[in-house]
């Protein structure tokens, strides 16, 4: 089936009208060395029947493992109503329709989403979403450079306790625009940034500080001290937060100890925990909220509430002068869309859960993780890696290399966590584990028992 409705005659008529011989010729001004003749690694198209069979086989390979891996994507219960509503014809679309005259339902949903995210993060304004948490952090760094007009350095401090993939994505998104990312080392005893270690940046021109809470190790950073330090020096604070955690932790809008002028400047994060299945890594969505003073530097779309000519309430895209179709090359960002379908699911999820429901999910996930770490710590050769509180994941140390142990666990149908060795070799054999409300005591005991066996086998080998 052809998805392009133009016939060959249509195309020829249009080319003749503008005096061009071929479609190819329209792209002549792009230098040859910047063009790809083919996409490497992308195979020939398959038929619907072939692709259906291929995907069913791939899904079978995944099996139904017991999953204790978090590290940025989290397995939460998704009420059946979420996707039953999100896939209704009124919402289900390959491309988000924004025309106010045709899309009041979609625009109202996005407005409700923005309201929920602003409320959850305790920030003044939200956009209609970005692609994922990692690229949202990159966009937040670019936004901070635009918004912090007291700083000219484009230097962004990024703790190594920020998700390694987020740091890579931010460098990819923003690195070619002259931003300089400086890594802040963490305390290997505590798994956090010691606020005192920031003193060596006193008096320097720094544009922004990124703080992930909970951090990549699941540990809670001293966000108040970090935020106070940055705000006292005209350094913007970019919060990277887990939305589930905000039901029980202090939201970024309240970070800092000063009553006046407290809070992060920009909050971003991965929206997947809000009703989006893990599905092999995507599609997910990123969220971004900010202080009102920075709203014109925000990337992406923003829906506003207004009145029509007859004075009736309605919804429409607003502040579009930031965007590409108006500002062209000087747009704040090249993002002119949002993750409509995923945001629909998240909005339905949040409205079904409500604040009390989300708090129960967060509290249960925290309790399950504590139970998991307690059970694993009783296994010979396993210990907790860091002192101090966590939200719903924690790093544990093993007495031998992690990768072979994870393989043995996988053979028993258990995904045991994320091997930290690749990104944090200084920690020795270390494993990041997570339990959400989806795990039972029996699941946790099964994992602890299997881990004991796997370690015994590894020791014997």
């Amino acid at each position, binding site marked *: 089936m052809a998805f392009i409705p133009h016939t060959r005659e249509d195309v020829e008529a249009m080319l003749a009208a503008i005096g061009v011989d071929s479609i190819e010729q329209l792209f002549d001004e792009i230098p040859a060395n910047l063009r790809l003749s083919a996409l490497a690694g992308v195979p020939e198209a398959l038929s619907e029947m072939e692709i259906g069979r291929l995907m069913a086989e791939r899904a079978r390979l995944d099996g139904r493992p017991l999953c204790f891996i978090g590290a940025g994507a989290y397995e939460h219960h998704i009420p059946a109503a979420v996707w039953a509503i999100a896939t209704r014809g009124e919402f289900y679309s390959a491309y988000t329709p924004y025309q106010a005259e045709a899309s009041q339902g979609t625009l109202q949903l996005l407005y409700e989403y923005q309201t929920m995210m602003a409320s959850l993060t305790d920030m003044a304004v939200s956009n209609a979403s970005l692609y994922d948490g990692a690229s949202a952090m990159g966009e937040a760094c670019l936004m901070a450079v635009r918004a912090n007009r*007291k700083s000219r350095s484009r230097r962004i401090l990024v703790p190594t306790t920020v998700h390694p993939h987020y740091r890579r994505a931010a460098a990819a998104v923003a690195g070619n625009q002259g931003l300089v990312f400086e890594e802040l080392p963490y305390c290997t005893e505590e798994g956090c940034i010691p606020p005192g270690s920031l003193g060596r940046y006193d008096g320097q021109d720094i544009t922004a500080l990124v703080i992930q809470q909970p951090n990549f190790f699941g540990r809670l950073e001293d966000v108040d001290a970090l935020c106070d330090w940055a705000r006292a020096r005209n350094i913007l604070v970019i919060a990277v937060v887990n939305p589930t955690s905000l039901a029980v932790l202090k939201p970024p809008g309240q970070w800092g100890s000063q009553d006046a002028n407290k809070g992060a400047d920009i909050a971003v994060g991965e929206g997947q925990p809000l009703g989006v299945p893990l599905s092999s890594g995507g599609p997910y969505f990123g969220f971004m909220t900010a202080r009102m003073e920075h709203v014109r530097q925000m990337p992406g779309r923003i829906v506003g509430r207004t009145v029509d000519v007859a004075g009736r309430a309605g919804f429409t895209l607003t502040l579009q*002068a*930031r965007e590409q179709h*108006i*500002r062209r090359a*000087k747009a704040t960002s090249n993002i002119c869309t949002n993750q409509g379908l995923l945001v629909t699911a998240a909005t339905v999820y949040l409205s079904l859960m409500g604040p009390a429901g989300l708090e129960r999910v967060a509290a249960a996930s925290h309790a399950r993780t504590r139970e998991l770490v307690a059970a694993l710590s009783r296994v010979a050769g396993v210990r907790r890696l860091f002192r101090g509180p966590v939200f719903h994941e924690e790093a544990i140390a093993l007495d031998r290399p992690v990768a072979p142990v994870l393989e043995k666990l996988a053979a028993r149908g258990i995904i045991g966590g994320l091997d930290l060795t690749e990104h944090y070799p200084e920690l020795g054999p270390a494993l990041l584990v997570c339990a959400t409300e989806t795990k039972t005591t029996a699941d946790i005991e099964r994992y602890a028992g299997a881990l004991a066996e796997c370690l015994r086998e590894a020791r014997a080998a």
Partner: protein
Amino acid sequence: MSNVPSDLKYTKSHEWLRTLPDGTVEVGITDHAQHALGDLVFVEVPEAGRKLTAGEAFAVVESVKAASDVYSPVTGEVTASNAALASEPEAINSDSYGKGWLMRLRPAGASPPALLSAAEYEKLIAEEGG
């Protein structure tokens, strides 16, 4: 018909420039420019202390129709900017040569750049169909 005061200097990109008694210069956008943009809803002005090169964008004016950069007519250092525009951007529509000023700056170097006289600017906007 646009208002083009005879005591100011102008640029081809529709900024005006007024030399103040203390030697600093005040810069804004012309009546013709505000008229072409329509109702202004937001103005971003530079921080005092910022060093600008002639031709460099120093402000953004956003109307219901478009957002446009405003370019510095001269090289120098910003001494003040019009903070009142944050809450009252429409001052540029109503009084572009007075309350609608954008910034003041201290020019660097002695030789003034090639700016247009009021008569030359009137001719320019007449040619542009304004």
